[in-house]
């Protein structure tokens, strides 16, 4: 069986982004593989290392040329080959799912791993939309996966707690923090990744024109109250702090 793992390139969590011309300007920001997708890449590798009959692990990314770097990271972690659908157009999750579904079919994969929530759109739609297009079951917010033959078992979060599941492949799985601890690519594997296949593809083949257009962007700023408590009398200060936490911030009962 083959596994397809989707990789997105997003600003590093500590990167400072700017807005210019109503758009997010990533010039100068450190870009990395989306942490959510790292869990997917890691899990694909672990399923294979755990003895499952995984014939090939393929990483897929869409976006401008720079996205290659994120794919090289996936290759250095251990993915076998990569496909880069190169485009300067930003794809909304529904448009992107069209690409993912078609690549999955063309490559004959039976398991798709995508991050549960994308750091660039913050939507949770990609996994669901891809599953819908393919008519495959989807398992969201997984925290444990195991593969035996063509049966995937695992656990995932639901509103009221945690469920165990069993599903015959093919399936779409969304990943999240806690599923695993992604490995660092080792230096020899970074060297080897340079020799692995990174196939370029164009967007036109997929008919995946985005329907959502971003017309403006703003940086969210949070105004702080900067409330200071006089600490001269520790008991009074503690009482005041408790009062504020209880009645104003409403974070304790």
């Amino acid at each position, binding site marked *: 069986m083959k596994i397809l793992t989707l990789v997105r390139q997003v600003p590093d969590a500590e990167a400072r982004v700017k807005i210019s011309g109503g758009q997010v300007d990533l010039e100068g920001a450190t870009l*990395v593989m989306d942490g959510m997708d790292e869990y997917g890449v890691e899990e694909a590798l672990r399923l294979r290392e755990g003895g499952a009959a995984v014939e090939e692990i393929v990483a897929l990314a869409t976006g401008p040329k720079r996205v*290659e*770097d994120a794919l*090289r*990271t996936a290759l*250095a972690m251990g993915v076998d080959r990569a496909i880069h659908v190169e485009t300067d157009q930003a794809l909304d999750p529904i448009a992107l799912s069209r690409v993912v579904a078609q690549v999955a079919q063309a490559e004959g994969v039976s398991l798709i791993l995508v991050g549960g929530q994308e750091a660039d759109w913050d939507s949770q739609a990609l996994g669901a939309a891809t599953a819908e297009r393919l008519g495959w079951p989807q398992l969201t917010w997984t925290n444990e996966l195991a593969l035996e033959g063509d049966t995937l078992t695992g656990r995932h979060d639901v509103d009221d707690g945690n469920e165990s599941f069993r599903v015959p492949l093919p399936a779409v799985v969304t990943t999240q923090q806690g599923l695993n601890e992604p490995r*660092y*690519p*080792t*230096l*020899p*594997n*970074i*060297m080897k*990744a*340079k020799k692995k296949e990174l196939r370029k593809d164009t967007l036109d083949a997929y008919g995946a024109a985005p329907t959502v257009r971003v017309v403006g962007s703003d940086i969210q700023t949070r105004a702080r109250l900067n409330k200071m408590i006089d600490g001269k009398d520790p008991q009074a200060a503690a009482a005041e702090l408790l009062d504020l936490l209880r009645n104003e911030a409403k974070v304790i009962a």
Partner: protein
Amino acid sequence: MNFTLPEDLREMQAAVRGFMLEVVEARAREIEDTNRVPPELLRGAAELGLFGLSIPEEYGGVGLGALGRCAVYEALGQGHMGFGGVISAHASIGTSGLVRLGTEEQKRRFLPRMASGECIAGFAITEPSSGSDAANIRTRAERRGDVYVLNGTKHYISNAPVAGLLTVIAVTDPARGTRGMSAFLVEPGRTPGVTIGKIDEKMGQKGSLSAEVIFEDAEVPAANLLGPEHLGYREALGILTNGRVGIAARATGAMQRLLDLSVAHAKTREQFGQPIAEFQAVQFMLAEMEVAIQTSRLLWQKVAWMVDEGQDVRRMASVAKLYATEMLSQVADKAVQVAGGMGYMKDSPVERYYRDQRLLRIYEGTSEIQKLIIARDLLA
């Protein structure tokens, strides 16, 4: 002209930086308190490939050129300097002689085990009577049949207490002066007559262990002669020359870490009702640190590029090492000043860097020796 590091090298830097800041830093206090690097950390470094940095791929290493090695050294410098010292003494001066001068048989025998971290390497040239005056080496190696018999004492030898292999410089023909020295591959644990003395108590760079190495009629197989007999002092020092670029890169990484810590502290530490970053006195220190980092980085990158181009870097390697390590001392001093009292406390990495960095102006050629090399080359 292109000042962008290739993508694979940036990726390697990110991997090494991540390992140093997340995995090693979490155990930093333990390394400080025990003066030992936990074995799990050495295994982690081995898995990452750090022990094989300068070893060709055919022998199980990463096979990086000078630019790649130095890029990794800069990332290494951003973490615990004692830990970085173990790696760099192994991958730089401990390995480069064998890679450059070794026979195929010698390389097959040692390099794969060195790349995997199973055999840690070191370089033994310094003696009690020959530090900067390296030509005054007394350790003798006399040929007797199939062996060389070594007698003498080396000291301050980095990695000696943990080394599986030492490249030892000894006199093979006293009559030939500096042209009568040779290099030997010595396996301390497996060579009767080689004793490792007690571990030196250093000011900093904890976990990077150094000690005396005493040779008493130690018989080293003639097959372990590295390079031609009497290869001479200059060739032996060639091993140190390339190592100097790496030191400049590590110093740059250390400065970057100190600046990052200083910026973070200045933005959050409030005095007189505002973050201290608002004060020009602090801003100026941060700006001076940045200038030191940018200039040092340009220097190591240029010299590493020259090495990869096959150019003679004797003068420029000294320029880079001298400049970057002197700047590092200034930057560390400023970082303590920005951090204030906290920068003087053991809980702060700034305090540790302040002690650790001092060695870089001394080992692998003091600042003064670097100046002599530069001036002699100018006047030659």
